[in-house]
């Protein structure tokens, strides 16, 4: 399960997402490890929240409105945001469009959080493709993202195979790696 403090951070972030959507009429989307953490209900955990939001200004205002501060703590890289109530976690905005505009934005999933918050995630196919793409550029000894991709693939209730194939190709990944046997052979 996701840790309680992680869920509390998600709740606050959900308020930011709702506020951002009211300002812009568009959704911010949680991507990367945090999205994988939710799709796996906490089997995979991440200390970072990476968020795609097209309007920097509106996103920064929404963050400030809910108590997030630009990272300025001693010993931390001056990037992204932190929240005094969620000090264990880092929050970073990823610029540009969702997956560089290659994903189908109609496939995102939105969930209500607490009374008025919303958390939006990419489609599972996009997340699997992203993890496979990240695997290609990770250190050769780092199989973590491949494992995440395989796990997400096995956990998915429904997969649009054609869309997944297209997205994996666009992200530079290898769809055949989703066969768990490949991982086991590779590590034997």
């Amino acid at each position, binding site marked *: *399960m*996701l840790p309680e403090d992680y869920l509390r951070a*998600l709740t606050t972030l*959900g308020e930011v997402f709702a506020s951002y959507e009211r300002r812009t009429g568009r959704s911010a989307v949680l*991507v*990367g*490890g945090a999205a994988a953490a*939710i*799709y*796996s*209900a*906490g*089997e*995979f*955990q*991440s*200390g*970072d929240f*990476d968020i795609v939001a097209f309007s*920097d200004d509106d996103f*920064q205002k929404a963050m400030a409105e809910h108590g997030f501060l*630009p*990272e*300025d703590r001693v010993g931390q*890289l*001056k*990037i*992204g*945001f932190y929240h005094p109530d969620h000090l264990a976690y880092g929050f*970073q*905005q*990823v*610029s*540009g469009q969702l997956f560089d505009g290659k994903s189908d934005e109609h496939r995102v*999933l*939105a*969930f*209500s*959080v607490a009374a008025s918050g*919303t*958390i939006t995630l990419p489609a599972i196919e996009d997340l699997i493709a*992203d993890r496979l793409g*990240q695997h290609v*550029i*990770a*250190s050769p*000894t*780092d*199989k*973590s*993202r491949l*494992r*995440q991709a395989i*796990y997400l693939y*096995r*956990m998915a*209730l429904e997969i649009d195979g054609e869309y997944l194939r297209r997205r994996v190709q666009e992200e530079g990944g290898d769809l055949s790696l989703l066969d768990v046997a490949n991982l086991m052979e590779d590590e034997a």
Partner: protein
Amino acid sequence: MKSLEEFLRGVTERRQQLELLLTPADVDAMRNRGGMRTAEKRALLQAIARRQVEPHPVIRSYG
């Protein structure tokens, strides 16, 4: 709209149905390695750390 809580409950149930029960070692193996960053993100973070010019610049890589 489905609640996040409901979604997480569904994922947990599915995990049990599929018997995809992971050991702590399995979970650890899924954790990002190598500073938990892609090469692109790592390079950008290093450049920012050197310059320290922007209070909260945006990045282009998902961790």
